[in-house]
């Protein structure tokens, strides 16, 4: 693997960084929403 981007680093790294942050964020957000919905439903079903 070669991480030397030369003068193109200023374009390549931000693109990879933004993509990684966005995809990780949407994953966590989706899992959090799922957990919230599951907790709420089980609370309602207990009553």
């Amino acid at each position, binding site marked *: 693997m070669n991480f030397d981007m030369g003068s193109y680093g200023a374009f390549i790294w931000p693109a990879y960084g933004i993509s990684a942050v*966005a995809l990780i964020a949407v994953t966590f957000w989706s899992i959090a929403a*799922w957990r919230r919905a599951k907790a709420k439903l089980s609370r309602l*079903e207990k009553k």
Partner: protein
Amino acid sequence: MNWLFRYANPHEFMRLSGAVLPFTVIGTALCLLAGLYLGFSAPPDYQQGRTVLLLFIHVPAATMAEMAYGAIAVCSLLSLVWRHPLSDIAARAAAPLGALFTALGLITGSLWGKPMWGTYWVWDARLTSFLLLLFLYLGYMALWNAIEDEIRAARAAAILALVGVVNIPIIKFSVEWWNTLHQGESIVSGKLAPVFLAPLLLLMAAYGFLFASLWMVRIRTAILERRARTLMQQGVP
């Protein structure tokens, strides 16, 4: 159509998606690792240098943006014709994901355009029709949120999605129909060297598995939320 309705039943969907999810998650991880490894190991392209690395994340994001819209359109058609409630849930759940992939396609594309074309943005047919896709997603989501009655919201959103689907072939064929700055297709036509094709296909698979995983999680979430709403309407405090 019977097989579809069997699995389109929320209870069956929960069971089936629960069984499929581990595999799509593992698929995402494996394809992502292998694709990134091969991508960062690939030699510089003779014209683009190392900016070829940008195509490994730009093309998958742009492809998923279009496929997610296609999925919304199919679900919308099922919803309008057969009035199946799960297809509304599925269509709505895919929209934020599609919008995100569209935004990533635009951002990574313009970060490639600056060093290679000398500009972040140009109003050519491919770029403009792809920007329109982002607005279609945003309009679709706004419409869902604007109408309170869920059945009416679903119908209006489904009609918008089906009208907007005309943009998908325009995006796809814009590089052939018009003289665009954006280059033409190079995967199916075999113009891409295997050393670049392998990481690109792996990352496309990774993005595909990721979309499938997140879409299923979001549909499952919406099903649970609907059950909770029904319980509350039945008087459970």
